[in-house]
């Protein structure tokens, strides 16, 4: 709480300053009180205090999560030195998407656990590539030892990464890839990569759908994210490959839903209009899958259509339990973000790291959703 209050104070000050600029004419109080409060220590330092209060009961981990963490930690051995207080910045995509909000929480929690200072920043919206680069530029101007970055697109962060390289800040790429080709051309490089195998996410989901459809098959559709984005292309390609290989399964539509709930809702309605006999929809993330489920529900056609998403956000978890959604592809965000921070620490401390680390995956469906209780 303290952290937020402090941030609010600074923010109110900035605001009152600008309001003052516009000529509201209250010059007496705002700027003066501002400088007093402004000299408070950096806001990031509060993270540690806050977290301790939040985790008194200790983390409750699902059995699946422990299994997965084990697999990943083996990939990362030997582990670096912890509790060294390194400052690490994380740049995620946007806080307007629950997945990235969980990622932010994952980073902050892992930061506590590893005894380092983690600050998470984001672009205002999912498509704002320019602002994301500007945010990275400003982060590079700070004193982070390493930055873990997840770009909106393969190219938008390239100039910022080059700046970080020049300043000696280690850069770890988490999730959607930063184009290494473009980076090399611009004279930059990545210090490490951790990602999820997107194609495997798509193919896992599609395999489940094909299995459920059985020998008679049927019409299926894919709702992509933003075309060109790595997760979107990879997941769609993985699903497409499996669908095409399956007998009697026909892909009737592949549409870009731009990761957006509303767009996906409309697409699902349109697909249903065009193909009333649709049997399954694979959406490249849960938000869109949930929207598709809503759209079919609204049309009274939810029964008999299999809808799968990816990411296993908590809303999807609930929806699978309730039977609203048929399944999702999970990887633990907590383990994922923790692994990224460990990688960052390893590079900062001069360890060698593997070229690419993959976060292990799991398919969640109504059959096994119970095993995922307490999953984060």
């Amino acid at each position, binding site marked *: 709480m303290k952290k937020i209050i402090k*941030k609010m104070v*600074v*923010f109110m*000050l*900035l*605001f009152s*300053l*600008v*309001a*003052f*600029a*516009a*000529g*509201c004419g209250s010059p007496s109080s705002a*700027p003066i009180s*501002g*400088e007093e409060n*402004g*000299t*408070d220590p*950096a*806001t*990031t330092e509060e993270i540690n205090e806050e977290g301790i209060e939040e985790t008194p009961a200790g983390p409750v981990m699902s059995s699946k999560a422990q299994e997965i963490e084990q697999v990943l930690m083996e990939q990362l051995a030997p582990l670096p030195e912890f509790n060294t207080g390194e400052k690490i910045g994380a740049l995620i995509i*946007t*806080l307007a998407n629950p997945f990235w909000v969980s990622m932010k929480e994952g980073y902050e929690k892992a930061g506590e656990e590893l005894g380092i200072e983690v*600050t*998470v*920043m*984001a*672009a*205002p*919206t999912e*498509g*704002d*590539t*320019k*602002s994301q*680069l*500007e*945010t990275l*530029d*400003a*982060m*590079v*101007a*700070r*004193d982070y030892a390493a930055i873990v970055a997840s770009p909106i*697109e*393969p*190219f*938008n962060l*390239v*100039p910022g990464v080059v*700046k970080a390289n020049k*300043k000696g800040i280690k850069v770890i790429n988490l999730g959607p890839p930063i184009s290494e080709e*473009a980076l090399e051309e*611009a004279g930059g490089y990545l210090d490490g990569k951790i990602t999820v195998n997107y194609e495997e996410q798509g193919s896992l989901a599609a395999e489940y759908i094909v299995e459920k459809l059985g020998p008679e098959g049927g019409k299926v559709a894919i709702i992509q994210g*933003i*075309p*060109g984005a790595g997760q979107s292309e990879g997941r769609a390609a993985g699903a497409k490959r499996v669908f095409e290989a399956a007998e009697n399964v026909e892909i009737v539509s592949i549409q870009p839903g731009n990761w957006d709930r509303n767009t996906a809702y409309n697409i699902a309605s349109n697909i249903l209009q065009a193909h009333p006999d649709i049997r399954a929809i694979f959406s490249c993330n849960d938000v869109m899958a949930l929207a598709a489920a809503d759209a079919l529900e609204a049309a009274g056609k939810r029964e008999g259509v299999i809808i799968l998403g990816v990411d296993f956000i908590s809303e999807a978890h609930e929806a699978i339990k309730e039977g609203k959604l048929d399944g999702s592809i999970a990887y633990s965000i907590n383990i994922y973000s923790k692994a990224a921070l460990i990688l960052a620490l390893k590079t900062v401390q001069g360890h060698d790291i593997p070229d690419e680390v993959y976060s292990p995956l799991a398919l969640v469906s109504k059959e096994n959703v119970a095993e995922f209780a307490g999953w984060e």
Partner: protein
Amino acid sequence: MQKYVQTDLTKIKLLTSHIFPQLLLILVMLIMVILLSVTSPFFLTWDNLRNIFDHSSLYIILALGMTFVISSGGIDLSVGAVAALSGVCMAAAMQGGLEAGLSILGGLIVGGLMGAANGSIISFLKINPFIVTLGVMSLSRGLALIITGGIPIYGFPRDFTWWGNGHIGPFNPPMLLAAFLTVLAAVVLNMSRFGYYTLALGGNEEALRRSGVSIHLYKIIVYILSGVAAALGGLVVTARLNTAEPLAGWMLEMDSIAAVVLGGTSMKGGKGSVAGTVTACLLLGMLRNGLVILSIPSYYQQLVIGIIILAAVIIAEVRSGKNLAFINK
């Protein structure tokens, strides 16, 4: 006696109200610099100031065009989409084998054409600029999506990306472009006949028409300027990101309008300030940068900028209302 004093006061009030917004903006900027430098050791470094200038340059380029449009009593909601469309056209041309220079020219022409479309429809058919530019905005986005098929075009020759992140001494091309356009816009708006007519369009269109000036011509030119400015913005953003996205420049029109209004240009037209616009762009750029430097989450960034736009508009409105009341007495 009483009357004379009042007239003098009115004059003083009017005079200060012209420069006052800009003076205040500069003052506030200075206070913000001090506040941010005290709060964070990372703010007042050349690298970071360069970031701010670099990031603001895009907003300045677009907002300069918008200053002309708003001074003439209009509005242009299509600039973000036109920036994206122009960028996409440049990219498609280069992909087709055209050299960088010609591709850029092509993109600028596309921007100019969209501006001409805006201006012609608004002027000849006398349709509200808000609606017309809203239509052109959607049309441009649509074209950009069609040309790219929704998939960003990337990987351009060095001749092109130089416009986004090349080096000219300690500066880069976007900054110098913005600086050059600022000087140009200030001269044109304040010293040329075209600038005079632009302001007159916003102040009293009917009087200008009766004095025999071709309203249509000047209105169209104003929107063409805004379109070309948007295309230049498209060049900067495409070259900087090395990617032409159909969805680039999202909400850029709002940022431009906010900067123009914050800079003291009247939404009613007839009054425009290039210096104010540029100062406001730098102020907004500094604010965005400062919020990141202070590690304030992006939620608040949206909120702050939204509140500022509202505050600026409300205050401008209240102030102009006060002046009117004072004169009427």
